[in-house]
């Protein structure tokens, strides 16, 4: 979708008598230098602005992705960004023309952050059916509803017990800043849930502030040791992630600073492109051996999770379950990333709602539904998504991008560049200073708590007293497609659309 960016010159010029007019998120508070503000120009991640006659003008509209960071950061509210109807002549949209032009100039594919941007069936295509007299609704204000979940009690001596079925997904130190890692750890602890190291090793501060921390074990094995694994509450073997299914982590050299290189033990400034698969997990028996290996190292104490992108979900889930996983994570194609080739993000994987149903069904088929916990990820934003994911078959969910949005992310897709204006996806000390991690930690917690409350309300609407008791029959599909994808009854028809 193209955007039109307008800067109101009059508004922009008002209040210029303030000391340091660019006080807002300014990294150079020098009054004498600062005649004009340039916040829009400085903070736009996509070079939409140009300086003409000492004034910033939004010139390159075609570059705008609609993050509205300029709008948010303008001290004078002089900027307005509006989506304009897409100009599309049959298959040819403006974006296609711009992208072909870029490819012809640069000769390379596009790398970007965040998840798929095109329209994909989502949780919005489903609705919760409220209870009336056939079954009674539960009173939100006076009656209790459980949100506590136990994950991974199959073989682990110490399963993961969380107060809300919402966990924070893997985002590595390197991809995001130390401040962002700390904020997520604090937020998770305040909300009584778990966060995840991501594949970049364990930051001491993160361990300190996270009461429950999942250690990710990914193909690059960055920062992995016996101590790393034994210092966590669960291990997540990352086979794949929704945003770049079938590829490993991408941390571009711009973000591999001294700190990051030390924790990962890789050279500074080089690209950390994790292998597409674990070198030692090529088939199902390898996964089974990997799980055994990690259990031997951790003495069978903590749960072993296996995270998949959603591809051949049913086969993969059955294999992981048979291989002895305690918890399985399926990440739908809406899942986000700090960096990935855009073509893979947009054009591989299946939607989260379909993946959850397929995974749940696969576990039932191998008779392990009760033993193995299922976590869903990919495009979860609010309590409604959480309730629907659980109703479709998940036991808990991961939030990734959404958690970052709660601390300021505007989904500008430029995470890989290391120049994040919000101090999140960057290792630049000046930019990192912009993120107040104590306040950010509280924001994460408040967001998760509010989301949990939302999920509770819908659970009670459906007549249940425990979020985990939501079931597929508590849902109705609003579109024929969503019904066919998920097997949820089509609203009004009261039966699923079956092929």
């Amino acid at each position, binding site marked *: 979708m193209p955007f039109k960016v307008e800067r109101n010159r009059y508004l922009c010029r008002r209040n210029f008598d303030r000391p340091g007019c660019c006080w807002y998120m300014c990294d150079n508070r020098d009054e004498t230098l600062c005649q004009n503000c340039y916040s829009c120009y400085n903070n736009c991640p996509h070079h939409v602005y140009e300086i003409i006659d000492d004034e910033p003008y939004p010139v390159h509209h075609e570059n705008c992705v609609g993050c509205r960071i300029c709008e948010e950061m303008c001290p004078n509210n002089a900027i307005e960004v509006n989506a304009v109807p897409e100009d599309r002549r049959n298959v040819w949209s403006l974006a296609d023309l711009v992208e072909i032009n870029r490819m012809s100039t640069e000769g390379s594919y596009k790398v970007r952050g965040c998840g798929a941007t095109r329209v994909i069936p989502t949780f919005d295509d489903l609705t919760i059916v409220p209870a009336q007299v056939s079954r009674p609704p539960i009173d939100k204000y006076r009656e209790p509803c459980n949100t506590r979940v136990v994950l991974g009690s199959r073989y682990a001596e110490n399963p993961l017990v969380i107060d809300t079925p919402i966990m924070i997904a893997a985002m590595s130190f390197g991809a995001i800043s130390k401040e962002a890692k700390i904020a997520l750890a604090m937020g998770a602890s305040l909300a009584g849930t778990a966060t995840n190291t991501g594949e970049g090793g364990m930051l001491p501060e993160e361990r300190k502030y996270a009461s429950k921390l999942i250690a990710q074990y990914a193909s690059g094995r960055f920062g992995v040791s016996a101590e790393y694994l034994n210092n966590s509450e669960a291990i997540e073997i990352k086979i794949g992630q929704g945003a770049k299914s079938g590829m490993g982590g991408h941390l571009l050299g711009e973000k591999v600073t001294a700190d990051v290189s030390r924790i990962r033990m890789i050279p500074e400034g080089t690209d950390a492109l994790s292998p597409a698969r674990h070198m030692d997990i*090529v*088939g*199902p*028996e390898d996964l*089974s*051996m990997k799980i*055994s290996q990690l259990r031997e190292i951790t003495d069978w104490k903590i749960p072993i999770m296996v995270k998949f992108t959603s591809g051949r979900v049913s086969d993969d889930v*059955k*294999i992981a379950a048979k291989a002895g996983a305690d918890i399985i994570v399926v990440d739908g194609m809406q899942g986000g990333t700090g960096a990935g080739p855009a073509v893979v993000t947009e054009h591989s994987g299946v939607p989260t709602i379909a993946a959850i149903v397929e995974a749940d069904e696969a576990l039932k088929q191998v008779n392990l539904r009760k033993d193995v916990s299922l976590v869903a990820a990919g495009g979860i934003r609010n309590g409604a998504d959480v309730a629907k994911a659980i109703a479709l078959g998940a036991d808990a969910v991961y939030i990734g991008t959404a958690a970052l949005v709660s601390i300021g992310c505007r989904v500008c897709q430029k995470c890989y560049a290391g120049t994040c204006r919000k101090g999140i996806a960057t290792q630049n000390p000046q930019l990192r200073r912009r993120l107040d991690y104590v306040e950010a930690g509280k924001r994460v917690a408040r967001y998760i708590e509010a989301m949990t409350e939302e999920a509770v309300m819908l659970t009670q609407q459906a007549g249940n007293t425990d979020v985990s008791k939501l079931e597929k029959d508590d849902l109705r599909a609003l579109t024929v497609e969503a019904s066919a994808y998920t097997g949820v009854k089509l609203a009004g028809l009261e039966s699923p659309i079956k092929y």
Partner: protein
Amino acid sequence: MCGIAGVVYKDKKLHPVGAALTKMLDALQHRGPDSAGFAIYGGLGLEENEYLLNIEVKEKAGLLEAVKSTVNTVTPIKSEEVIPSVENSIIYRCKIALKSFAALKPLIMEIDKIDDVIVLNGAHSFEMIKDVGLVKDIAARYDTASKMGTHAIGHTRFSTESIVDRYHAHPFQSYIIPDITVVHNGQITNYWKIRDPLERKGHIFETNNDTECIVHYIADKLSEGYKLEEALEESVKDMDGPFSYIVGTPNGVGIAKDQLGLRPGVMAENDEVFAIASEEVSLREVMDTHNVEQIAPGETRAYTI
């Protein structure tokens, strides 16, 4: 996906190869818990044109009689045996004679038309044993320890994309040429591109399992005059994905590994025995393994007696 093993006694004489392979497969049990199978060559002692059929029959009144009468209309049953199996089915084994090998596949297809009946295989020079469950249970059920032969291949299965049942247990057999079997660890990712030309040539596929595809591919190549070594080398060029597989033929075994070497394969030999397997732990069951050789990516090996 799974564990694979093969063993050849170099002197062409009969040895307790069933017992040896059972131990080799048991050592690979951790690579696949779903099913296991054996193809034991050289010990059946059938007359020329005699064949042994293994038929899975549901336990249902009159069904076994129907099978027998179908077989008898084509050729008289010379001898028979019923092996009690699991999951409400029995294995009916019978010896028959046919005018030529070409009559075998049509007979099998005829029997397969009966509901709840499936022919696991028909063979002249090897004995096929395959079933669901653990190696030691299957070995006890079929008394594999008593089987004599010159060479054998076997498998423990960790299923991936196709179903778990006796029929989908390895080894898979092709009837394009007599008595060829394959066990396989891995996946063929250009499966349909291998299968389609073979089907267009008239070869019949019974399952969607990629191992069946390999056995038909190799059998097709052998029927066109390729040597086993050459057929194996061609397969490495044509097939994509991670794989290592072992072929069994009436006079030997061969192994091939994909070009990236993504699936394991080790071999060892001494004056008496040539053995290949997924892991050393399996080779140790048949010989001293001071010198274990890794099969390299894209490499093929064959040993014929």
